[in-house]
């Protein structure tokens, strides 16, 4: 049996109101790091809060560690949660914040002191125990919030967009930190984000949500390379999603399905036609060049169709704006979608 399960979970705020969660079922194994990802308003935070026990569900069941938790309060579910706005207690120091959960459980004072010190060291804030939240940076506050959530040894760790309010460099560091701590304690973790890159980087499994339903689930690799719908293809990655007519213009071939998905890295660029081995070839003009550090992104105009191509940075092979070239790809590398 899976460690966490949601069975036919539906959430509505009123009887005739819209369904925030529409008959959702999911399973999560012990120790997995899963991400609920989707655009704003898709229901990912609502689902997380329902699992936490902070929101009721209209129908369905929620199981945590083989126990039916549907009617249990948040305090009874033994979950740990980190919120987007950190939500540290402003009147308590970092150490007091971290120790709070253990104090509520009436743990021995000496054990509390020791565990608090240990946890602050794990999140690399050993010297910040006496600081108040207002004296800490955003990244530090989030680490305190994480330590506070983990110290009570929760069954599940829930993270509701914890890195949204943090700048890019610190966010990258915290992504690694969260993953490191999750692996260290082997805590089953559910992470909510609207950032698909963050989801891909951090997760063992992704649940892609749209309008209250789970559109697709799978490993990051699978969800990226095998999207099942137009929404999945456009949300995850920077895919080129072409309708039948556009695909025909680009490849010279026809499709029976509604859409063809071309990932940016499956399209190869050539100066001369003679070198090409792929079966689908089209002439194109470079409209824009964006250097992303280790990769270069080319925006091409290919017989009136815009194509987005990503290649590894190479000083010897670069194309300029306005330059004509050949874009080629293998038909078997494409994904074809009915919807």
């Amino acid at each position: 049996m899976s460690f966490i399960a949601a069975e036919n979970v539906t959430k509505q705020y009123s009887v005739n109101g819209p369904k925030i969660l529409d008959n959702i079922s999911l399973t999560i194994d012990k120790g997995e790091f899963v991400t609920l990802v989707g655009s704003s308003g898709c229901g990912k935070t609502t689902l997380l809060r329902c699992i936490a026990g902070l929101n009721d569900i209209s129908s369905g069941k929620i199981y945590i560690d083989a126990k039916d938790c549907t009617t249990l309060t948040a305090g009874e579910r033994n979950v740990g949660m980190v919120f987007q706005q950190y939500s540290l207690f402003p009147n308590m120091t970092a150490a007091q914040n971290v120790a709070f959960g253990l104090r509520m459980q009436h743990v021995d004072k000496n054990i509390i002191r020791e565990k608090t010190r240990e946890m602050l060291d794990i999140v690399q804030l050993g010297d910040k125990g006496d600081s108040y939240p207002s004296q800490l940076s955003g990244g530090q506050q989030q680490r305190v919030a994480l330590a506070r959530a983990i110290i009570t040894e929760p069954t599940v760790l829930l993270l509701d967009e914890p890195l949204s309010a943090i700048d890019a460099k610190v966010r990258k560091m915290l992504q690694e930190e969260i993953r490191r701590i999750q692996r260290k304690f082997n805590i089953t973790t559910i992470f909510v984000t609207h950032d698909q890159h963050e989801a891909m980087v951090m997760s063992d499994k992704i649940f892609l949500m749209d309008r209250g339903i789970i559109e697709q689930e799978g490993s990051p690799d699978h969800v990226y390379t095998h999207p099942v719908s137009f929404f999945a293809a456009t949300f995850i990655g920077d895919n080129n999603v072409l309708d039948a007519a556009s695909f025909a213009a680009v490849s010279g071939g026809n499709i029976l399905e509604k859409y063809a998905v071309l990932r940016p890295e499956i399209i190869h660029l050539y100066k001369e036609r003679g070198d090409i081995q792929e079966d689908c070839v089209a002439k194109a003009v470079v409209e824009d060049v964006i250097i992303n550090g280790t990769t270069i992104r080319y925006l091409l105009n290919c017989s009136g169709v815009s194509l987005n191509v990503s290649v590894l940075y190479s000083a010897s092979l670069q194309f300029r704006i306005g330059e004509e070239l050949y874009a080629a790809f293998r038909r078997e590398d494409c994904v074809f979608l009915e919807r």
Partner: protein
Amino acid sequence: MKNRKRNWFAYLFVTLLLVFLLMPIIAISLYSISKSWTTQILPEEFTFDYYGELFSMPDFFLAIVRSIGISLLSVGLCIGILLLALYVVLVYKPGWEKMLSITVTIPYAISGVILATSLLSLYAGGPWPLSNRLVMLTFAYCIVILPYVYQGIRNSLYAVNVHQLLEVAEILHCKKLRAFFTIIVPNIFSGITISALLAIAIVFGDFVLVKTIAGTSFFTLQYYLFNAMLKSGTRGGAVVFVAFLITLSIAFLAFNLQEKGSKHRAQL
């Protein structure tokens, strides 16, 4: 150059404001120690006899104790009731907040005399403790200070992310009521302190309610002042200045305690 001009203007403005605010207190303190003050800018002769007279009367100290006691009791009661009411509204019935806001402003529209006579006619013949004048007076004061205390506390609550803090506390196995009083209330303590001081000043300075409801059975400082004014203005001035010093001391103590509380929490 521009900054110096702006600073000069700021200093001048603050000085004038301080003079404006302190002038009545300085004037009353001078008046209270003047033996005669007729046509000159300053008193012709000074004396501390009136203060000597005041501090030699046990009634005076009793009046002070009664005033402080009833102020603290009614303010404490009002704050306690309001905090519990706000807890219920914020946690369980958020839709009731508007109704609560409207209800607590009703006392603004009720004058002291109407309140006092209405309470007397309603409860005077009733069972104890409702008919007890001191109990009636205490709760009358609670009603009068209700809007002031509510506004101060409610404004402080807006600055705190109440719901999310309560949710975090709940997840960390803390009961909601305990979370409200151990996490939320300490974070709005400055708002509570300021509301309490304002309310204490209102209760401390009241004469209408105490005269109408309690009469001479509960002799407060304001009643003492009324009687002193009948004898002479300088005696009244002395009582006013002492009342000012008491209110100032209460405010100083309150802010000092608030400061110590913050430092104590830092040391834990």
